[in-house]
């Protein structure tokens, strides 16, 4: 058995939980209180931060071997390319009036 205390084992999951709940609270508060305007930027930023926390700390990307880190980073990068190219097309396309 390890000599690690329960407190030391709890520390990282607890910090991650607190950070994620705080960001969830921020997203929900913005969505409920100021649903219009440009606040979607803040909502997306909070969601992005939550994803980064889960990938880096819960999924422990920083602990994996370099080849695993490379695959995971490339995977998210590829998704970003797909997202980016698709959204640029729709964001810049002029739609003729019906």
């Amino acid at each position, binding site marked *: 058995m390890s000599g690690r205390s329960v407190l030391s084992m709890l520390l990282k999951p607890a910090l991650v939980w607190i950070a994620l709940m705080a960001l969830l609270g921020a997203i929900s508060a913005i969505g409920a209180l100021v649903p219009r305007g440009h606040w979607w930027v803040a909502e997306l930023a909070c969601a992005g931060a939550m994803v980064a926390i889960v990938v880096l700390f819960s999924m422990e990307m920083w602990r994996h071997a370099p080849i695993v880190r490379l695959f995971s980073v490339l995977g998210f990068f590829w998704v970003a390319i*797909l997202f980016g190219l698709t959204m640029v097309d729709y964001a810049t396309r002029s739609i003729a009036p019906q």
Partner: protein
Amino acid sequence: MPDGVGIELAEQFSSARQQKETGELGMWVFLLTELMLFSTLFVSALILRMLHPGAVTAAALHLKMWIGGLNTAVLITSSFFMSLAIELSRAGRTSPMRLCMVVTAGLGVLFLCLKGYEYYRDYAEHMTPFFAWRPYGLLGDPASRLFVDLYYVITSLHAVHLTIGIGLVMTMQHLARAPGFLSRHANRIAITGLYWHFIDLIWIIVYPTLYVLNR
């Protein structure tokens, strides 16, 4: 590794470290294909929002944001217990690890119950455009059907993944009853955890994309 924690070397690997890294790489590659699958659905939701903002907002206002937010909190808490189970597995503490995994799966079941209640409320409000025999609540807004259909596709696909995750976590904690499990298969808990955290991650994207951004 501490005493009682290790990996039984399979013949195709030259070291326990190589075996552990291969298992993690395999799970990550699988999860990235899942990410691609869900990403196409998220892109579709954003494109719908750009093309039909009024219709999407009208449909999104029918979604139960409080249930979506509560479910996000439930999954975040389940991920906390899964992370704790992984930490306990690394310390060779089987019994509390198994308890944490049961709590993790239990919170997954709670999520599904809340989701089922939300579907029931949607049905009661006639937000089921795919039922030809039931009048649709936003009949005068045909484009909103696309968003509502997409909502069901995304959330039900996530629910299927979550159900698989619950089965995986419960199976793993059941297997961990065997004496010396952690001395032979300690890496399996962390790999199972990767899948569970990924389900959490997908819902963290679903919640703002469907429930919050379109209001």
